[in-house]
């Protein structure tokens, strides 16, 4: 299978939520000496972005979304592990959903995209106390803290995170990214966040920019 065909197949395996196929293609890509990041970015990531779009349009449903995300994770894990040392981890990100907010589909997609793009991600889950974001970031010496919120009632947690970081004298130590349905670039600017991701792919792009890679 040539590179172009493999990349197309990789995209399709995620849309079809075919975990076995995704795994096989990831291994084939490594065996053929292809650039793992190129396979992720042009193949698997394109597939998961399409899955997210189809879900957002009501053309694909949650069970399929979960299965696609699983297939993506298997492929991304295999390809990330094959990255040459030094290039292996772009940076460390602590990701979670704001306190009081149990919605984590969007956050999990961001985690998948970040992992697929070579970040070491610490997913601390949903409905997480603000202080836990800070504790985890200190514990793992993170570069970025990402907080997602789906509700207008929980998005204030993103503001609280930045205030708490300032109080603790840690604001300059970590970059803060925010996202979620009610969040906007204006909201991010207003609360003093370093970046806002409109969707998972954008979040990964912004994370790279924050670390000066783009």
């Amino acid at each position, binding site marked *: 299978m040539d590179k172009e065909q493999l990349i197309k197949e990789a995209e399709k395996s995620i849309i079809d939520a075919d975990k076995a196929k995704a795994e096989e293609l990831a291994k084939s890509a490594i065996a053929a000496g292809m650039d793992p990041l190129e396979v992720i970015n042009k193949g698997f990531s394109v597939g998961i972005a399409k899955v997210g779009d189809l879900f957002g*349009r*009501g*053309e*694909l*449903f*949650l*069970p*399929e979304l*979960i*299965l696609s995300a*699983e297939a993506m994770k298997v492929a991304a894990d295999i390809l990330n592990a094959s990255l040459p040392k030094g290039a292996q981890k772009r940076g460390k990100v602590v990701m979670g959903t704001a306190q009081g907010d*149990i919605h984590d589909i969007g956050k*999990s997609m961001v985690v998948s995209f970040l992992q697929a793009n070579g970040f070491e991600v610490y997913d601390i889950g949903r409905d997480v106390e603000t202080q836990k974001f800070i504790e985890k970031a200190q514990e793992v010496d993170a570069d970025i803290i990402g907080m997602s919120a789906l509700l*207008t009632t929980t998005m204030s947690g993103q503001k609280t995170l930045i205030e708490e970081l300032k109080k603790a004298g840690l604001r300059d130590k970590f970059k803060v990214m925010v996202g979620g*349905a*009610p*969040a*906007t*670039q*204006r*909201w991010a600017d207003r609360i003093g966040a370093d970046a806002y991701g*409109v969707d998972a792919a954008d979040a990964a792009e912004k994370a790279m920019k924050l670390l000066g890679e783009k």
Partner: protein
Amino acid sequence: MQKIYTRMGDGSVVELSESEVRQDLEEGTKDAAERAKIPPLSEDDLQRLLELYKCPDKSVGVEKGKEVILSYDSGTTKFNRVNVSVSKLQSLQIYERMLGADTMEMGHMDYSYKPAKNIMWIEQPVFEQALLVTIPPLFYGAMPNLGLYTQPDGPCLNPMELLPQGKISEARATQEEMIEHAVRDMVYVGSLMYESGADGINFDTTAAAGDADFLATLRAVEILKKKYPQMCIEMGMSGEFILGMHGELTYDGVKLAGLYPHKQVELAEKAGVTIFGPAVNTNTNESCAWNTARAVTFTKACVENSNIPIHANVGMGVGGVPVTETPPVDSVSRVSKAMVEIGRLDGL
């Protein structure tokens, strides 16, 4: 060229040129048309929307004689939410005598059928009192809210815990179990309140928990309508399409996941719904013009496909209204006028 004062979907003020507003209107209607596979707004409709946004008036209204019914949902909880200390009866009287409500609704602060069933003995006498002191049709309403049937709040396993573990069939089975509990509670509360004199029952924010939530409500409506053929049943939706949390549920042979308003109303009507309220989510990253054109496109198709009255949801975060605690009058009045004059709906 003079700029047009408008807002983004998060309520922030923005000044756009006429061509920018026009472009947003075109893109908003195109987005709705592509998603729901319905016709976009006509050139004439777009031009009327553009005029609406160009109008410098702070608030706008429909022409005299074109007023529509104002049906309020969740009426007795809204004043309390903004810390105004009034009782349920006082809230209803304010809606009737100060806000011009044509239909009103009483509900409990929890606003879900499950908790409401335990306090029917408190709700019934208050409702009877309310009927004695108000004139407009009075509904009793709450949300189906299937989320309350999962552990630790309810008896069923949580599909949101099962799905990430890859337990798809278990997640589907638990949602099917939740449907049975929810139908029982909605029929119980609906029956008691109707027998207490309610002019109608409202199922508000239907399908918030996805296709199972929608199916449970359709089934409850069907049962109530068989039991009380004269009952007025209002169904207000929670979003523009039915989220496929289960993904395989059907009603009358139609797959529920992914249905848009013009298809939702067909099933609601079959089940026995008397008034249908489509809800279209506001995108905070787009302008009010984009959101309004989009919301009107979905709603217009719903109206054209319906034999029952359509009372669209126009409030915080839905129908093109910005996501702000107190929706700004310039946006709300524009959306309302557009919905009535272009969407041709029957009520708000």
